[in-house]
């Protein structure tokens, strides 16, 4: 089908492996995401925090650096310690960045396809509905992983390399907490954003509802707790649930709320609900029977 021939011919060349085709979706999506200067700036900012944390780890493990800071160095050495609390604060800050990145990116991922009837074009290709969702999910999973658990593990390894094997052996639970809680948070954010994107078909509205679910969820949780004199109202407060799971894994005092098993169950149920919504909405054509 050469341009100058203006005639049709079949493609005679090799094909890519079937399993890898869903990765085309995030590759094209990344180009769109990083077209926005605001997003590039915001992502760079979210990467700068781990860099700052890395510098802090270097300074706290390096007496010469602390000495060069004089009294401030002594003060810093007394106040800051690379321990569970240090990493829990890191996770909290990065979770915030992950949240706002999802607000900007997530709601437009599927709604753009649905708004212009693009789904039949995707699903008439040799990819399944699950692969389509996985491809869209990969956009958020990859971006958010970079600033949460990947950055967290790099900091953990940096600290381990400086503090020695004993510190590493004594703090393996910190690494596990970084991976598990970050993954849970990323899944909650990503699947909710995709579900709203598929459900509402309008990026702006989906974005607003996404923010509202978290902020109104906090208020609703407080209300339920006050009315029923319970702590179970926090099941509507996803960031609180994640913090409880993280604190229990890190071995620090958890915030008020249901027990860890209740938090994990609530999060899994919520993830299941998002998947169900995606299952119902991601179809080439909606059939009204």
């Amino acid at each position, binding site marked *: 089908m050469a341009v100058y021939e203006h005639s049709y011919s079949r493609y005679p060349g090799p094909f*890519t492996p079937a399993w890898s*085709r869903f990765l085309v979706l995030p590759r094209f999506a990344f180009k769109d995401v990083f077209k926005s200067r605001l997003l590039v700036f915001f992502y760079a900012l979210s990467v700068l925090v781990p860099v700052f944390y890395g510098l802090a780890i270097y300074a706290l493990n390096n007496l010469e650096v602390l000495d060069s800071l004089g009294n401030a160095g002594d003060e810093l050495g007394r106040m800051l310690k690379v321990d569970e609390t240090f990493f829990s604060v890191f996770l909290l800050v990065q979770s915030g960045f992950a949240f706002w990145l999802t607000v900007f990116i997530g709601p437009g991922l599927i709604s753009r396809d649905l708004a212009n*009837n693009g789904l*039949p*074009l995707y699903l008439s*290709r*040799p990819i399944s509905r699950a692969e389509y969702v996985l491809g869209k999910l990969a956009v958020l999973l990859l971006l958010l992983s970079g600033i949460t658990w990947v950055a967290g593990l790099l900091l953990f390894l940096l600290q381990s390399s400086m503090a020695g094997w004993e510190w590493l052996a004594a703090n393996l639970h910190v690494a596990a907490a970084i991976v598990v809680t970050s993954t849970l948070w990323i899944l909650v954010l990503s699947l909710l954003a995709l579900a709203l994107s598929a459900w509402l078909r309008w990026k702006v509205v989906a974005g607003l509802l996404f923010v509202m679910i978290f902020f109104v969820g906090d208020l609703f949780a407080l209300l339920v707790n006050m009315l029923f004199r319970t702590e179970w109202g926090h099941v509507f407060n996803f960031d609180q649930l994640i913090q409880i799971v993280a604190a229990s894994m890190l071995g620090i005092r958890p915030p008020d709320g249901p027990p860890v098993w209740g938090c994990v169950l609530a999060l899994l149920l919520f993830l299941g609900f998002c998947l169900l919504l995606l299952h119902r909405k991601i179809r080439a054509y909606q059939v009204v029977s």
Partner: protein
Amino acid sequence: MPGVIELEGLSVRFGKVEALRNLSGSFSGRAIGLLGPNGAGKTTLIHTLLGFHRPSAGSARVFGHDVRRNDKAARALIGYMPERDSFIAGMSAVRFVRMMGELSGLPPAQALERAHEALFYVGLGEARYRMLETYSLGMKQRAKLAQALVHGPKLLFLDEPTNGLDPPGRERMIKLIKNVRDAGDVHVILSSHLLRDVEECCEEVLILKDGKIARYCNLEEERRANRKFLELEIAGDVDAYVAAVRTLGCESARAGKRRIKMVLPPELRIRELYRLAAEQRAQIRHLDYKKDSLQDIFLKAMDLDPLGDADHGRLRA
């Protein structure tokens, strides 16, 4: 050797509505027109073959691949141009077609090359870097055709490809479809409610009615078989005249209040018709040899009186 499309008792049900009912057959034509009034099941059949709907009974195969068990393998061989306005906003045409090519398994470099070629082929070469949302309807239709062709499918589903196009746009689309068909590498299934489109592009027609196959035929063979087809306009007692010509062994059908279509036995001469008209005190005002048109085939399949049925209005010749 398996047919291009093979159906075995295929039924598709949406709740209480049975959209396709027990369809069976093997279809291997180079260009098959899918005809039927609104709601006949044309689009449902295409969607089922693409794996969008699960059969409630029976099976369907595309190039031997079962669309239920091996839908991805079937879709890898299919190019699909949907009926409705379908595109991805915020993308240039070349990027859109390239992405579709890559999703079908083309490596990135080849997908980009084929995207350029496909867009030039459909006549969008100069506009290929424009955003899709800025395209006119005709251009969007051609972009949809380009994405359906980019990966070099063996089977092309075109669902109402000339919908909403102005006459030059339609001509251009028909020419493209004929060109693809004549390339010889691809089978075309053209679903349309425009009989003229099907007549121009297709060699075979599959007519659906109420979710069932009403007729499957080769257009050329059908035309050849109807050489002695006559159309008459009668003044006087038409019913009596029709009854009289039937005694001579003619097959006849009313084609309106005063019009009759008939197929004469080989030995019968035209003067016999005039003699009968004189006997019945009827006048033959008009007599013409005609080939059976697709419209006639369609109307026969629908069991419709050509001028007397309201459903006729849904299909345009």
